[in-house]
């Protein structure tokens, strides 16, 4: 599979632009809905509470893209197709982009840019505290995502820093679960289950890696 001519050509020319398009699509969709609403063509395109709809949509999108980021290396492990790792950076950055928009939408539309209201939310409400910590933890990862930064930091230090994605993904899922009216709801629990599988995969990989000697060539 890894040597298929088609796959190699796809990896070289199409994979990156197609991924970028897929990552922009949710934002484009949101832009269309807002245009429909504000122009009056379809004032209720997002239902009767577009403000709530928008920040929920952005939060869900951010979380799901974050889960996709975490699924890249398991997919590589299973298929053996290494080039897929080349799109991981842009997927991770997109997760950060949507998470940041999620906060901006909440801050602007829900809190009317009131800093005291945001501070109060962060201090008082556990799910918002967790969400803001998860978002804050994404900032250094986004800043150090360039090739230059990887070189400057050195592979080891860079990997240690980017290990943060695991706790921050757990925080993001906890944020999703705790904001619900009741603890057990299908959607956040599905997110949690997917994250659990992705994390367990890493544990299994680590344990198996310890058990058998490392292969001579990567």
């Amino acid at each position, binding site marked *: 599979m890894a040597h298929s001519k088609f796959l190699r050509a796809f990896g070289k020319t199409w994979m990156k632009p197609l991924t970028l398009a897929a990552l922009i699509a949710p934002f484009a969709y949101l832009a269309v809905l807002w245009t429909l*609403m*504000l122009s*009056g063509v*379809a*004032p*209720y*395109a*997002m*239902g*009767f*509470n*577009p*403000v*709530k709809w928008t920040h929920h949509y952005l939060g869900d999108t951010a979380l799901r893209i974050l889960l996709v980021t975490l699924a890249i290396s398991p997919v590589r492990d299973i298929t053996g197709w290494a080039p897929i790792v080349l799109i991981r950076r842009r997927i991770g950055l997109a997760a950060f982009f949507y998470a940041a928009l999620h906060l901006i939408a909440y801050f602007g*539309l*829900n809190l*009317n840019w009131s800093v005291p*209201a945001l501070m*109060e*939310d962060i201090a*008082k*409400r556990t*799910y918002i505290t967790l969400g803001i910590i998860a978002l804050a933890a994404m900032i250094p990862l986004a800043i150090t995502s360039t090739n230059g930064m990887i070189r400057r930091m050195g592979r080891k230090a860079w990997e240690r820093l980017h290990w943060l994605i695991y706790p921050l993904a757990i925080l993001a899922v906890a944020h999703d679960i705790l*904001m619900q*009216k*009741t603890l057990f709801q299908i959607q956040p629990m599905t997110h949690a289950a997917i994250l659990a599988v992705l994390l367990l995969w890493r544990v299994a990989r680590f344990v198996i890696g310890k058990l058998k000697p490392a292969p001579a060539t990567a």
Partner: protein
Amino acid sequence: MGLKFRRNPGYQNLRGELTPESVFFSRRKMLATAGTLGAGSILGALPACSEPQQPKAGAPAAANAATINGKAVPANPTGGQKLNSTKSAYVVADGPSVEDAFNQYCNYYEFGTDKEDPAQYEGIMKTSPWSIAVEGETDAAGTYALTDLVDFTKLEERVYRHRCVEAWSMVVPWIGVPMASVMTRLKPKSTAKFVQFETVVDRNVMPGVRFPVLQWPYVEGLRMDEAMNELAFIAVGAYGKSLKTQNGAPVRTVMPWKYGFKATKSIARIRFVTAMPKTAWNKANANEYGFYSNVNPNVDHPRWSQASEQVIGGKGGFNQRRKTEMFNGYEKQVASLYAGMDLKANY
């Protein structure tokens, strides 16, 4: 556990008196089938199916004839029928919300937990004729037809702001009668300190009651002086028409100074009691929902601030935020009810 969710035998009996059960269920089955197929044309092809939504006004339709305790009672209007009412002085300045928002953005957990769920079941529940059981500390206990409790010739319109505990609000032109007029008619004894309202539970048409999200039936209540307050209202309509299923057809309570969940939709039972009723949301989560539940921008919900609210149903689609007012802007009429009370402790 199974016992908990058993049908309430009281309601079964009430229902049996109104319409032969077989007729009742077959109509529902047809409606349900039509609903599943989801085709408007099929609804049109079966006149019986559309009948509950659009009866001929004023016609003494056989389907609507009812007897309660052997007495014939007049039917009340079914959902969406035109209602005549007189204007009242209770009018919120910023105008009613878009009617579609009122009919499509609803919290009525018996019909599902999403805002869009209840509207899917519009017309599925037979709400005319309708009877209400009156019990407890009263000299007028018994079963009443809705038309006995609400004088449909004396309806008034009140444009109230409706503030949901979830930090959104609408402005609704309700149609109905003052709650005090109904309370007086029901002759509560001096021992009655609270009045408790219960929503009907009907597993055949309410998909939500199959899940223990809340303890069914939905129970709410008021202190007697709250129930007698000039603002407390018994609504049978809104926007010039009788209430539809998703907003609590055929009869519900409206207390504009309290969060929306204090209202009871599709009232099947009124009980006068001596002790503070155990209310549905309070039983489900006492930390978040108290008995009083007065709109109060200074007392947070544990998961969000109540200082402001999202306005639903504005004309342009986009919804603004507005500052929440003390008692939802009705401080003048109701503040005296809570004089000397710690509103943080009595949330």
